């Protein structure tokens, strides 16, 4: 059955921790992790609730395959109403925390209310308690994890926690586990902070022994691991180069959002690419990249472990940053680099370490700095206001602004609001490169048309991971489509959205889908979980999860007008590259997409769609 069938419900206001059975009818309709946690959240809170009020809830959720021997089976999601967007927020993380939570015997932890003083939740199998966290408040992620392990006298305790940005209400604060794996987007860390919840620390020794058909599960997971190993992307490309290999690809096709989306190619891209991370630095003769790293159960191992040049201006007096640490991933390198015109690889490594250390999303943060630099160049923001001269390309401005955002000082408090609120505050809302208040990731919607529709319709605000059509439009996985045309993109986006909703609910990593189809995941679920897990059921489930999230957003107040892109992408054509002269065709794609979804012209699922999906 794969699920532990147990939920831990924690009321911070009353300081109670209770065990309750998992709703198995819901598990069969929504599986786990993203789908099942969203079902619980949507059933238990008012979608119009203030995300930072005690009435919001926040859920840590595993999937049925989390903690099992399925490759990449270590994922968990944090689901809540997001403060950056006001929409459903669901952020997914790897590392080892998710599996440990499962080993402790819990499918899910639902957090309610608000503690009157800082606390953390300690879970050791069935022994669960809220502990005082006053001494941890004001500490970074790295300090918190170290201190909790020390207090428990157990280095194998896994910690999922917030840093200072979560405490300070940075609207894109993350929840970080294992030092540098993060539920990164949409501000889930700010929700935890608003509840005075510093961390969840978990130690589990029960294992995951309740697989429906263990023999078949062992056989099928072995077969599927072979596919990952023999596939050139998951067996060689990702472990060797990581996600950062995309830097030169996306730049070459002219889809690299540069300087707050003013340009679509960045002249400094090569200097901050995977290839640059591999080669010896001129300063010290050492490569920035040290090694790759895997999350629990992962046979891909795409994670980067890097070392900054100890003589770099950012760390020359800070030895704590000299050791091996989480390295640059593509989205972070883009947001901290290309979005700001910064090509100093070690400055980007420093900034990404600070994002890990104090738990904030480098995508939203970096993109917000892009808006700050544009406002500075326009003369709207001044050196006096910001605290430093901040033209595009200034690594010193980037790293200074990262430091003050991490610490919640001065102008860093404004940066912590995200680009939408910041640009509105200074009278230029059009300069926020975001949808529903969440900043774009690293693909220009003018040069990859399907990604424009992906961003506009993503239920958690602009996001690449809700339907990664780059696979098809750029990389040819599973089939190559033309990135410059809108034709066929509504169907492509819908297919990716529905399939991804299922993958995100299993406990597996979406990166498996560079080699696996959903039909490779289906037999793993079938062997692990009792009941029927046919492809037809999974296809319908993906659509059901997507529409459930949509209904939550509709009830929260989102309408057709929120499924849109900033005017810049619809009126300012790409200046160079294959997309030269093109703008996003989002207005053409939306009506067809709504039709395919079975939604009315205002973007609401029709009664027929709701009935068909059993919502």
């Amino acid at each position, binding site marked *: 059955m794969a699920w532990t069938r147990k939920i831990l419900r924690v009321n911070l206001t009353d300081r109670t921790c209770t065990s309750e059975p998992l709703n198995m009818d819901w598990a069969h309709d929504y599986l786990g992790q993203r789908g099942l946690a969203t079902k619980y959240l949507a059933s238990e809170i008012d979608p119009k609730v203030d995300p930072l009020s005690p009435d919001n809830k926040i859920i840590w959720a595993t999937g049925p395959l989390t903690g099992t021997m399925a490759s990449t089976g270590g994922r968990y999601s944090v689901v809540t109403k997001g403060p950056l967007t006001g929409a459903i927020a669901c952020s997914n993380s790897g590392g080892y925390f998710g599996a440990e939570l499962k080993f402790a015997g819990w499918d899910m932890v639902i957090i309610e209310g608000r503690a009157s003083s800082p606390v953390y939740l300690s879970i050791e199998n069935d022994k669960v308690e809220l502990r005082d966290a006053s001494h941890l408040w004001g500490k970074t992620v790295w300090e918190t994890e170290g201190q909790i392990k020390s207090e428990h006298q157990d280095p194998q305790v896994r910690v999922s926690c917030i840093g200072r940005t979560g405490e300070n209400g940075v609207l894109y604060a993350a929840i970080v586990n294992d030092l540098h794996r993060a539920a990164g987007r949409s501000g889930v860390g700010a929700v935890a902070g608003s509840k005075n919840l510093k961390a969840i620390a978990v130690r589990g020794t029960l294992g995951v022994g309740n697989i429906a058909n263990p023999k078949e599960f062992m056989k099928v997971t072995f077969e599927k691991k072979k596919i990952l190993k023999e596939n050139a992307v998951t067996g060689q*490309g990702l472990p060797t180069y990581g996600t950062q*290999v995309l830097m030169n690809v996306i730049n*070459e096709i002219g889809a690299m959002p540069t300087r707050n989306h003013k340009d679509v190619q960045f002249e400094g891209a090569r200097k901050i690419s995977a290839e640059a991370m591999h080669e010896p630095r001129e300063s010290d003769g050492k490569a920035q990249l040290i090694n790759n790293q895997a999350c629990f159960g992962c046979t891909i191992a795409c994670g980067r472990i890097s070392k900054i040049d100890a003589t770099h201006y950012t760390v020359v007096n800070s030895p704590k940053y000299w050791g091996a640490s989480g390295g640059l*991933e593509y989205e972070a390198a883009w947001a901290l680099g290309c979005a700001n015109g910064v090509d100093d690889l070690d400055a980007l490594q420093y900034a990404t370490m600070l994002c890990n250390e104090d738990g904030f999303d480098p995508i939203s943060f970096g993109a917000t700095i892009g808006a700050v630099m544009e406002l500075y160049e326009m003369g709207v923001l001044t050196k006096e206001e910001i605290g430093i001269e901040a033209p595009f390309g200034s690594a010193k401005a980037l790293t200074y602004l990262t430091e003050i955002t991490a610490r919640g000082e001065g102008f860093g408090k404004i940066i912590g609001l995200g680009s939408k609120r910041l640009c509105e505050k200074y009278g230029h809302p059009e300069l926020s490169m975001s949808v529903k208040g969440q900043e774009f990731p690293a693909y220009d919607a003018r040069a990859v048309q399907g990604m424009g529709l992906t961003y506009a319709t993503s239920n958690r605000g602009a996001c690449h991971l809700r339907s*990664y059509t780059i696979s098809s439009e750029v*990389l040819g996985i599973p089939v190559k489509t033309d990135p410059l045309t809108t034709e066929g993109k509504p169907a492509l986006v819908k297919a990716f959205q529905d399939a991804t909703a299922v993958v995100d609910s299993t406990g597996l990593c979406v990166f498996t889908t560079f080699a696996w189809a959903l039909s490779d995941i289906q037999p793993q679920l079938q062997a692990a979980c009792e009941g029927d897990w046919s492809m037809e059921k999974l296809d319908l489930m993906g659509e059901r999860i997507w529409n459930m999230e949509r209904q939550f957003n509709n009830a929260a107040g989102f309408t057709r007008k929120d499924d849109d892109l900033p005017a810049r992408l619809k009126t300012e054509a790409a200046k160079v590259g294959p997309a030269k002269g093109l703008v996003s065709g989002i207005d053409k794609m939306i009506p067809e997409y709504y039709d395919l979804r079975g939604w009315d012209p205002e973007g609401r699922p029709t009664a027929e769609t709701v009935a068909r999906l059993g919502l």
Partner: protein
Amino acid sequence: MRVTLKLYASLSDHLPDEAKRTNEWPMEVADGTTVGDLIDRHQLPKRLVHLVLVNGHYIPPASRDAHPLVENDVLAIWPPVAGG
């Protein structure tokens, strides 16, 4: 005519030393040289020649042998890669 060959990720091993820090290899080629000709000339392993772009435009496998390069074209090639 002058064209530039760019090789990335594991294909970088096929670049001369002076091109390794830029991944760009400018070269003179005869008029009429095709994408397929350059791939063959530099003995790039077929299984690693996956994403092939000329000036950023994708060239499908079936068109590579017949696709002629012109002056100042940039041919960029990757093995199978992905990210996100």
